[in-house]
């Protein structure tokens, strides 16, 4: 479809203005992260030079490298756990018709109506009684089962032709072999979508790590930001913003690379 030139100009103007406004906070944080105290007080937008002092200082003030590693382990852990648990459940819903599957399906749906925050007090005590405070399993295990993830994969598994399933049974492939050798490989795109979604949401998680980490051993970057902000607030915004940039770079990269994929996959899981 071809657009008239004035119409094109209108669209590009609106697109650009929206992009500038929306992206401004991120660019602004980036600029501030290179500024010295006096520069920030003067209210400049561009720093005088792009020196890395603030970045060096933020790694000095906080065990940021540790926090980054912790966040990475926790996010990757939840991602893998969700992929395994959700794909197993989705497989059962699609390929093993059994009596009572409607009831189990209803149980899965009902978990979506229970806000996680309404259960956080007993959950905290479960983790505490297991002696799992300040451990990776305490940070990851409660999030392995995910109704949304199961539905997303179920949606994709449903598109696998039933003939393929029947043919594999004829060929003597057991259900688990069929799951491993056929279903998972042809569902790569949905698995990647769910993986990216799981990684992103876990990386950005705030309340749960705040509750179950009481020392720096497994603390994640998001809690590091809170520490940084409460330590530094009056003095050194440059250092704080350097911390912010370090924390958001991994997820922004992931998003930029996987935006198309994520958008397709999320809409698929959300609807139908």
């Amino acid at each position, binding site marked *: 479809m071809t657009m008239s030139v004035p119409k094109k100009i209108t669209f590009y103007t609106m697109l650009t203005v929206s992009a500038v406004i929306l992206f401004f906070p991120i660019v602004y944080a980036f600029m501030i992260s290179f500024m010295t105290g006096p520069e*920030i007080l003067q209210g400049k937008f561009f720093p005088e030079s792009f020196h890395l002092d603030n970045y060096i200082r933020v790694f000095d003030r906080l065990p940021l490298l540790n926090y980054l590693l912790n966040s990475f382990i926790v996010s990757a852990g939840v991602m893998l756990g969700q992929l395994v648990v959700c794909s197993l459940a989705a497989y059962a819903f699609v390929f*093993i018709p059994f009596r009572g599957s409607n009831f189990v399906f209803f149980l899965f749906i009902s978990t979506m109506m229970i806000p996680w925050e309404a259960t956080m007090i007993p959950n905290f005590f479960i983790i505490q009684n297991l002696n799992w405070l300040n451990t990776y399993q305490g940070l990851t295990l*409660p999030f392995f089962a995910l109704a949304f993830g199961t539905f997303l994969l179920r949606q994709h598994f449903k598109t696998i032709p039933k*003939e393929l399933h*029947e043919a594999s049974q004829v060929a003597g492939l057991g259900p688990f072999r069929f799951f491993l050798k056929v279903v998972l490989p042809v569902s790569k795109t949905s698995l990647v979508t769910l993986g990216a979604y799981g990684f*992103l949401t876990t990386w950005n998680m*705030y*309340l749960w790590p705040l509750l179950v980490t009481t020392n720096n051993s497994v603390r994640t970057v998001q809690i590091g930001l*809170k520490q940084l902000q409460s330590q530094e607030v009056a003095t050194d915004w440059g250092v704080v913003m350097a911390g912010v940039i370090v924390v958001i770079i991994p997820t922004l990269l992931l998003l930029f690379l996987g935006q198309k994929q994520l958008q397709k996959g999320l809409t698929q899981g959300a609807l139908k």
Partner: protein
Amino acid sequence: MSTIHSRPDEFIATEHKPGVWERSRRARTAILYLLPSIILFSVFVFYPMFRTIYLSFFLTDQAGDAAVFVGLDNYKYLLDSPAFLNSAKATLLFVLYTVPAGILLSLFLALLANEKLRGIGFFRTIYSSTMGVSVAASSVVWLFMFHPSIGMFNRFLALFDFPQIQWLLDPQWALVSVAISTIWMNTGFSFLILLGGLQNIDEHLYESARIDGAGYFYRLRRITLPMLSPTLFFIITISLINAFQTFGQIDILTKGGPAQSTNLIVYSIYREAFVNYQFGTASAQAVFLFLCILVATILQFRFGERRVHYQ
């Protein structure tokens, strides 16, 4: 595909009739695959939910165990408590501030980014970018922008000689400020979902409309919005639930203040439980939160579904 089809059918037809043990085999296999999810949901969702309801009828000790049964006293106490009523009011206001405005903004961006123009991929990436910025990181950035003396907003106001606003420090403005930053944080996700919905709409619908000479806004009203309604319905529900669950931005931006004006329900639960160690009343608040989300979801399904146009 039809050639493959016939053979397995024959195969199934000639199978012998299975016995009870044989027939329940499928159910047993299925349960094996579902077991990890079922165990995890039982331990981390269903049991804690029942435990929350149970605790809401008790006074608790420091370890969070039920000590004295008080019946509905925790609920009565909350309904008489100005602090809780204020928190409930703030939460409802917050939902009203963030949900409609956030969805209109994301819809606007999604409509723009759905045009087939050169370089549109770049704009899509920018619009979805806030999804990659965590609540903690964006809260820190917005905290700086709201700063009364060196923040960008007040500098901007000063540029036009407008009176300065104390944003997060002014009880009149604090909730609005948090709402503005929250709308920004949620834009990326809502945008991605809505754009996905727009791209699922059948091209042919537009082609025939264009032959009839229909204008942009006519097409928007008659084709785009009706066809988008399932996606809109979904994102409204999700935004509503998200707004009820707001925590991180409150903890970093305002800590519930000033004058309790931003003490949203989840923050209030957190404070009551993990600062004041009142697990009984905190659980009663959690039950309120659960009911709010339940009612919101059911209402959405009841009234939303009727107006939704499914393909």
